[in-house]
């Protein structure tokens, strides 16, 4: 079975250099941020891959690269066996775009405040000529709104008349308009209260079951990730450090960073487990460490770790990028 989404050595570098004149006069060097630095993964049809990591790890950039909001600096994205880069003609790209959609984190910024919900949810239908005539549009938008637990009559309202959780449902309704197979969800519930988050996550799971949707779910909240994902990828400073099935990752995390992350989560069950104290902070992406990006904070780092970057490889049923694990030191 060909995976629905296949990503190979994906990278995105942003040029954050000072303007040319400043560079010349102040003798400043060019500066680059390797937001995504060679990421590879695949997602099987109907499954959810979660990407987790702290701020600056590149997970949101990966999301945008996947749907084409950014052009990659290198690497490839294949959707249902076909490459998605813009070398192909515009018509085929449009067809591809219909099959994948995105849901954003900020329910207040991702809906145009001057458009009615009818126009917001109807925009993809119009763009792709999926319905004919205003009545058909209205009916279809009504169906979409009902499928996310809103009322058809809500299409006449404006975004400011809804709460954060309701706006996120409108975003989901809009994303489902083209009947996509693949949804990229960038922190869809991070801005919501826990009880509202529960509603939205339940809807997303129901929809996945009913329609066989495939999700890429970006989050920094590991408890939420545990609830929604099948597979989890952990990112650090633009690189994947561990990819594993959910059960494996949470019961037996191998990478030192994954262990640190799981250990750091405040424990609502108050099991009183002892924790390894967390060291240091995420380094400046303008000046990343040599070799393995995590080595300055890693209790198991040796000379090889500071000079040679570990590549993501199969080991013991998971994918891991760590010299210490592969060498059997931990």
């Amino acid at each position, binding site marked *: 079975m060909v995976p629905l989404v296949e990503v190979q050595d994906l990278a995105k570098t942003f040029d954050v250099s000072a303007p040319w004149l400043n560079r010349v006069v102040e003798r400043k060097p060019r500066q680059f941020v390797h937001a995504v630095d060679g990421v590879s993964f695949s997602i099987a049809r109907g499954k959810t891959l979660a990407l987790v990591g*702290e*701020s600056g790890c590149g997970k949101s950039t990966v999301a945008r690269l996947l749907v084409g909001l950014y052009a990659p600096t290198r690497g490839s994205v294949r959707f249902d066996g076909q490459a998605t880069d813009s070398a192909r003609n515009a018509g085929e790209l449009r067809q591809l775009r219909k099959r994948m959609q995105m849901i954003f984190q900020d329910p207040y910024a991702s809906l145009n405040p001057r458009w009615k919900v009818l126009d917001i949810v109807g925009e993809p239908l119009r763009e792709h000529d999926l319905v004919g005539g205003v009545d058909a549009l209205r009916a279809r938008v009504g169906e979409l709104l009902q499928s996310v637990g809103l009322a058809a009559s809500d299409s006449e309202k404006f975004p400011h008349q809804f*709460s*954060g*959780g309701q706006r996120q449902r409108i975003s989901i309704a809009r994303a489902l308009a083209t009947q996509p197979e693949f949804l990229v969800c960038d922190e869809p519930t991070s801005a919501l*209260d*826990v*009880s*509202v*988050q*529960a*509603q939205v*996550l*339940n809807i997303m*799971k129901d929809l996945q079951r009913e329609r066989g949707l495939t999700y890429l779910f970006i989050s*920094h909240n*590991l*408890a*939420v990730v*545990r*609830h929604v994902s099948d597979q989890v990828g952990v990112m650090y400073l633009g690189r994947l450090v561990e990819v594993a099935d959910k059960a494996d990752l*949470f019961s037996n995390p191998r990478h030192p960073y994954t262990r*640190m*992350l799981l*250990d*750091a*989560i*405040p*424990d*609502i*069950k*108050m*099991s009183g487990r002892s*924790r390894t*104290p*967390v060291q240091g*902070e*995420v380094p400046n992406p303008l000046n990343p460490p040599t070799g393995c990006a995590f080595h300055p904070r890693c209790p198991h780092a040796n000379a090889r770790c500071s000079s040679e970057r570990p590549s993501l490889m199969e080991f013991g049923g998971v994918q891991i990028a760590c010299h210490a694990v592969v060498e059997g030191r931990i």
Partner: protein
Amino acid sequence: MTMPVPLLEVRHLRVEFPTRRGTLLALDDISFTIAPGEVLGVVGESGAGKSLTGAAIIGLLEPPGRIAGGEILLEGRRIDNLPYEQLRAIRGRQIGAIFQDPLTSLNPLYTIGRQLIETIRTHLPVSEDEARARAIRLLQETGIPAAEARIDQYPHQFSGGMRQRVVIALALAAEPKLIVADEPTTALDVSIQAQIIALLKRLCKDHGAAVMLVTHDMGVIAETCDRVAVLYAGRVAEIGPVHDVIHRPSHPYTQGLMGSIPAMDEERERLLQIDGSMPRLNAIPDGCAFHPRCSVAVARCRSERPDLMDAGTTRAACWRVPERK
């Protein structure tokens, strides 16, 4: 044995916002106490009034918001009706504050040393040198490496987590008895959050300061607090020891809240969801504010507002509680 005087006592606090279209009651009869050295969590979703409670106690309510009723007592003396200058003297000396965004508390134009020294000398009768020595010790206690050098740096030269440590140092600088922390770790990454929570807990214990920790994050509450108050629509829904409120909640809202949080150690197909959302300030229902969303509401809930009543180890504002005992 007589009951020791609580450090902080909030009695029937009411905070209202006069608007053009009428007065909105944002806090409606809130009462709780904090014992010396205790860590009380104040938890609730957006709009419940937890930040307002903190602001009212520190005396930093944004006008037109104002205290419309009730009392706030610090060590038995009223502080809610003090003139500005007296309140300012208390704020900082007796009550320290930590906010979510460290850049709110730190002046970008002054070195952190200057800000620490200013705070120390405002409230304690010490010389410039002594204040500087204290400031360096505080920075070291909060885990800032090379404190003697970094004390002369500006806030922008620190990372987010480091800045929050500086803010904690600033809050503790005048040796206050109570720290009000409003979402102190929400803006930080998970790994830094863990460090800051542990630091706050340890330092407050070392310095003998009580903490009122306002947050929406139950995990942080579970890790840090002795007791917790759950707020809903400007009222206290449940209050009690943190273990009991989390594992044996009595109020239907608290039960729903705990059920909706995805757990790290167990799998559930669906999360418990409470349908609907918290009422807006201009549409608070009669009787119990939670009744429209409550699966066990009865006629009394719709007309009579429940006070906090004994629910075993916690207290909950719910008419169904006495029946279950």
